[in-house]
């Protein structure tokens, strides 16, 4: 065979002669598995490949995610709603992180039980603990990046926990936060740590961890079994485990998106909880309040860390050593499990917390629906502030429920009408039939309508009641203007005439009526504009005048808030235009 014919093996030899890569690979594959291959030894390889999955999915996310307080959340909505496989890639990053934490826990327990920390592997063990610390740092810096309401709440608490660490806390907090309060610089700091500093450290520590692992042989197993080469005897087990776990991550990712929720905004309700892996610390903090808080947030976690770091020297071998390692594993796992389950159970029973969670879920999907159409440069908050569906209930509960109920709810001691369906045919007809019902004027001082209903409506014939009903149906269309002279047949004209017959004595309409006594003007009654005027100043001459019981809100709410609230009460769902 001619020597200048290129062939795969020729290229391989050429490369190997210059780099030694093939020999290195062969050596790497053929290194023995001390104690023989086993299924329980797959955790290390699993961790490695999950980290690779996190790196790749993380880099892909960086193509779209934007670390800006006004853009972060919106960029993720865009990623998930508008970009092919965007939601899946973000979900992979999320689910692989969850898997990574679980497998890291298993890896730790496995190494504790096999007492893999003993001499000469002390530094291997400590580098592993540092890697676990890095994992926690990845979580702390990664979770707030969406700048969602939940993420903001979490990082706010976490920053103050860092700040409460004795001595170094306040300085560390400021450096991390990039100033005195959460904001754009915080996000930049967290992002830089998450995508540059921590990955670099991770690569360094993993490199050290792996090189020492190979140098020292794997953890101690019995030496008597024949030593099989790593590839393929351990590799096949690793491959199967990685395929199963990555497969599960993929299935979860196609089925469930990573959580997002509404964007961070001070007007939204908030009841943040840490992620499941930090719940144990959250629970621990409940038992140490006031000045002792640092015991839970810093001292106990610090002592556990110290105990683990010193374990190679605490375990002096023999039965005592075995006992120490087993006890450490059992106590850690049990304590973590119990402290995690307790707050979960408590939250499940806490109706108020569940209500906030449910409301945030609703606001979140609404916010995403709106933001999928684009977000103003000022950020998603502006979008929400203009949205009656989101802000209506929030404003109503902040400003109206000291008097008004809504569908029988929200007000503890209602003093005025129930405003659910206000201005609808059903609502007005209910009022006409029985204004004294607590849903209407029963709780107020307005007596004239009650009197009218008793004297006029109650004594009306069926035909007359049908006519009143027609006026009610007409009013529910928020009428404006009068029908032309020659129109007597249209529904509008019929309704107008019915109104003219039954209501005009007291209620004015388009500048007419109110001969008997002055009741609110019904031009455009129940429309967004009418309700807005009512909120601004109920004592307006065209509304309740001197008899108004409701205070004016013109100075308590912004013009935008009044429009949003009025639109919501009128049943509108479209965001208010700028």
């Amino acid at each position: 065979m001619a020597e200048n014919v290129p062939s795969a093996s020729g290229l391989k030899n050429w490369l190997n002669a210059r780099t030694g890569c093939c020999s290195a690979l062969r050596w790497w594959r053929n290194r023995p598995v001390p104690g023989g291959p086993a299924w329980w030894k797959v955790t290390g390889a699993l961790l490695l490949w999950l980290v690779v999955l996190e790196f790749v999915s993380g880099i892909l996310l960086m193509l779209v995610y934007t670390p800006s307080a006004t853009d972060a959340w919106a960029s993720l909505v865009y990623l998930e709603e508008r970009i092919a496989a965007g939601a899946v890639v973000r979900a992979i990053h999320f689910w692989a992180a969850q898997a990574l934490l679980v497998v890291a826990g298993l890896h730790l327990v496995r190494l504790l039980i096999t007492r893999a920390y003993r001499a000469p592997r002390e530094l291997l063990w400590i580098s592993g603990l540092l890697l676990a610390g890095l994992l926690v740092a990845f979580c702390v810096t990664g979770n707030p990046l969406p700048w969602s309401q939940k993420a903001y709440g979490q990082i706010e608490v976490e920053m103050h926990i860092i700040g409460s660490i004795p001595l170094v806390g306040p300085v560390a907090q400021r450096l991390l936060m990039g100033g005195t309060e959460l904001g754009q610089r915080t996000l930049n700091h967290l992002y830089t740590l998450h995508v540059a500093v921590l990955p670099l450290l991770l690569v360094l520590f993993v490199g050290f961890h792996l090189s020492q692992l190979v140098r020292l042989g794997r953890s101690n197993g019995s030496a008597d079994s024949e030593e099989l080469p790593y590839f393929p005897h351990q590799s096949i087990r690793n491959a199967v485990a990685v395929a199963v776990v990555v497969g599960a991550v993929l299935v979860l990712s196609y089925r469930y998106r990573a959580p997002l929720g509404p964007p961070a905004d001070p007007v939204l309700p908030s009841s943040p909880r840490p992620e499941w892996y930090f719940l144990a610390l959250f629970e621990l903090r409940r038992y140490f309040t006031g000045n002792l808080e640092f015991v839970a947030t810093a001292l106990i976690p610090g002592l556990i860390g110290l105990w683990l770091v010193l374990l190679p020297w605490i375990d002096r071998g023999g039965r005592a050593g075995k006992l120490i390692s087993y006890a450490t594993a059992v106590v850690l796992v049990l304590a973590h499990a119990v402290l995690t389950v307790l707050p979960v159970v408590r939250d499940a029973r806490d109706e108020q917390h569940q209500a906030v969670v449910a409301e945030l879920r609703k606001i979140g999907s609404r916010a995403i629906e709106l933001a999928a159409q684009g977000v103003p440069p000022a950020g998603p908050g502006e979008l929400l502030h203009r949205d009656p569906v989101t802000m209506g209930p929030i404003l109503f509960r902040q400003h109206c429920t000291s008097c008004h109920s809504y569908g029988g709810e929200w007000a503890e001691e209602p003093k005025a009408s129930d405003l659910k369906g206000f201005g609808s045919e059903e609502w007005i007809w209910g009022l006409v039939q029985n204004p004294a019902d607590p849903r209407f004027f029963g709780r107020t001082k307005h007596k004239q309508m009650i009197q009218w209903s008793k004297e006029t409506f109650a004594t009306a014939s069926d035909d007359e009641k049908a006519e009143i009903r027609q006026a009610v149906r007409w009013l529910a269309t928020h009428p404006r203007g009068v029908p032309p002279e020659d129109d007597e047949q249209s529904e509008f004209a019929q309704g107008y005439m019915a109104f003219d017959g039954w209501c005009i004595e007291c209620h004015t309409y388009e500048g007419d009526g109110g001969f008997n006594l002055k009741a609110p003007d019904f031009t455009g009654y129940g429309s967004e504009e009418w309700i807005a005027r009512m909120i601004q100043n109920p004592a307006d001459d065209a509304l309740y005048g001197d008899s108004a019981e409701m205070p004016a809100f013109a100075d308590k709410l912004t013009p935008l808030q009044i429009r949003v609230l009025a639109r919501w009460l009128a049943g509108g769902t479209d965001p208010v235009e700028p």
Partner: protein
Amino acid sequence: MNRRFFLALLTRLIGLGTAVAAAIPGLRLLLDPLRQKGSAAKRYRVAPLEAIPPGTPVRFAVRGQRIDAWKVFPEQILGYVWVFRAAESGNGGEPHLRVFSATCPHLGCTVDYRTDKSSFLCPCHGGAFTNTGDRIPDETLGYKNPAPRGLDPLPYELVRDETGKVWLEVEFQRFELNTPERKPIA
């Protein structure tokens, strides 16, 4: 086939399968820009007719809503157009206009108008066009004109508003660059 060979093959296959399955969504995200659409032609009110003097081209900004990924800017400059109004023929008829995109069809710089040469000149690589938007031939120019085609003409309409003022409205659009034929970016 011995056991070791079989296990090695199986390991490779499982590894490859897992990698491919995980790579598919990543590739789809990576290639997403290929399936994003350009903005379609849209009409914008550019200037009142009275602001366009006959005889010499005037440049106007096209302003409108710009959507940049997730961000919606209510009003931004989307691009520039050159408007050339021919000297009035004096018969009082409809004024005759030519409207061009100010984007040089070579590599996308914004072209200037040179009054001394009565022609459009691109500041980047010297693309040159007559004041009617045609590509100036190399012989006339004395050097190789890098522009592959003339300036891109844009459809327009003169619209009278409710106060009687006449406005120039332009169908603004972007075209593929550096091609002899004119192809809208879709």
